[in-house]
């Protein structure tokens, strides 16, 4: 019996975890990644530290990348799935390397780990993203932190006071995003902690509706940020951002505890942009005939008991392709999907052998 042939689409935390687990279990794995490197969105957007242990992103992802490279996974960078057809003897897939010819493969099972994209805050015009240079979103600010270059884009000065606004592009009927992004709270608070750690003179305020640092993020991130780093919290959602006379940003919000309108000046504002299905996720779902669920992510066969099965037999899904998730959850799901994909391929092999006997 030859080893099962399995395709993993996407080289982020979930895809890496799935690929190396499969290869170590003896499968022939092809990992298709559209970028020229492995590590997915956290690598691509230059994330800084990862909660809850505040480890640099390289420390979290590089061991996974090394395992993939050492376990004999066939990694195809700068590549995309061009066509996809399921039939009795497996999935017929054509992969195109950037500028190269189509390569045809046949796989016994497939894992979609096609990930998410940060929501585009231009659509929330009242926050002035793209108008005021000092209004940043998650990806801008993570990059700034990882490059240790904390300056106001407008004038290059170090900010004295920074605000975070949670739930931008999440929990908002106005923009059609009804769900919670699950990591906006923890990432914002982590960023504020990072700022306070490096620059204790900078004052940090987080505008929130609820703080959803579930599980161990509560004490390791949220409580720590208040108790050790004196990060301040304001319960209220900023309604709009104006420009002050001195070029600073003015956050127009209700402080719901004081029950008063506030117009507080800030040097920088970070928008906690939510998660939505990536272009790759939507396109792969279309190619492979996977159903999407109401929020636009890939629909799991059963969201409670079969979270890594898709609506198509033999295709599995892991990570943020099915909804917002943190890196550790994506890594676990990658392993879970690997198990399911391997089992599916082996059962198929056994069935084929019995037919030919």
């Amino acid at each position, binding site marked *: 019996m030859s080893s099962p042939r399995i395709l993993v689409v996407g080289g982020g935390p979930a895809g890496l975890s799935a690929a190396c687990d499969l290869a170590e279990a003896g499968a022939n794995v092809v990992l298709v990644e559209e970028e020229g490197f492995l590590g997915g969105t956290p690598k691509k957007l230059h994330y800084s530290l990862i909660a809850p242990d505040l480890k640099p992103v390289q420390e979290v992802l590089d061991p996974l990348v090394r395992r993939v490279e050492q376990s004999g996974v066939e990694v195809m960078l700068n590549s995309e799935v061009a066509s996809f057809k399921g039939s009795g003897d497996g999935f017929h897939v054509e992969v195109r390397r950037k500028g190269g010819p189509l390569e045809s493969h046949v796989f016994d099972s497939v894992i979609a780990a096609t990930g998410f994209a940060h929501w585009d805050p231009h659509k929330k015009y009242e926050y002035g993203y793209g108008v005021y240079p000092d209004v940043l979103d998650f990806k801008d600010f993570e990059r700034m932190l990882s490059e240790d270059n904390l300056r106001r884009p407008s004038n290059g000065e170090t900010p004295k006071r920074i605000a975070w606004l949670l739930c931008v592009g999440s929990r908002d009927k106005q923009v059609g995003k009804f769900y919670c992004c699950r990591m906006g709270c923890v990432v914002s608070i982590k960023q504020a902690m990072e700022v306070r750690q490096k620059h204790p003179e900078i004052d940090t305020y987080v505008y929130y509706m609820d703080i959803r640092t579930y599980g161990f993020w509560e004490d390791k991130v949220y409580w720590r940020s208040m108790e050790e780093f*004196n990060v301040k*919290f304001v319960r209220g959602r900023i309604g709009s951002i104006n420009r002050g006379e001195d070029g600073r940003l003015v956050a127009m919000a209700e402080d719901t*505890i*004081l029950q008063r*309108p506030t117009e507080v*000046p800030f040097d920088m504002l970070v928008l906690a942009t939510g998660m939505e299905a990536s272009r790759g996720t939507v396109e792969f779902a279309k190619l492979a005939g996977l159903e999407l669920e109401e929020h636009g992510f890939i629909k799991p066969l059963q969201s409670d008991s079969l979270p890594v099965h898709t609506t198509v037999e033999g295709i599995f899904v892991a990570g943020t392709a099915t909804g917002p998730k943190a890196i550790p959850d994506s890594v676990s799901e990658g392993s879970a999907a690997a198990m399911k994909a391997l089992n599916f391929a082996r059962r198929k092999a056994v069935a084929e052998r019995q037919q030919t006997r």
Partner: protein
Amino acid sequence: MPIHEKNLVDKNRLLVKEEAKLDGLDVSGQWSTFIEQRILGDYSTDVLDAVASTPAGKTIVNCWQCGTCTAGCCMHTDFGLREFNPRYFIYLAQKGAEDELKKYAPVIWRCVTCNKCVERCPKGVRVEEVVHSIEGYMRSKGWMGDTPASRWDEAFVKNTLQTGVLDELALTRSYVSREKLAEFNNRFMLRMALKLVRTGRIRTGPLRHRVKGWEKVRGVAKEILEGGGDG
């Protein structure tokens, strides 16, 4: 400008000027009334930094405004003094809303130190101590003078420093006569005090308990107290 339905405006925010001039034009009379805006123009860390730097106030940064303290506060609930809200005092201090905090000078000292708030706080805020620290800040700013509670504290410390052991009778007598507390100044209380002294439950005056070597300890205690620290 003339303001109709002034009854709808918070009285503290109505400014009526005897004489008012706008751009050199005399607008006294019914044009002399203004409404102070409710918008809070800034947050400040002044109060928070001052309170958090005192030993009593350092847990103020832990507070996340759940309201457990106020829910059990005997001043707020049982006594019914709704203006006494420890959670709110803490928030005003955290955000540096001094104009609002000032309004609570007449009530913030009313804590009876039952410490239910400290017992119950899920975040480890020493609420009673923090509120006293905020009170100390307000006094240092001159927003409030001494109060019956601060006079009691003063008398208590002075009394205890004498021998290291509290002389309850002397403390109560001096405090009652100074504050003119009629409820305590009657025959029933006197008879009870006499009985307590006769049976040896309370030792007062030359009979009071003493701490061995108190002179040395007193020196240290005084130094700490005078060093301030505890807002």
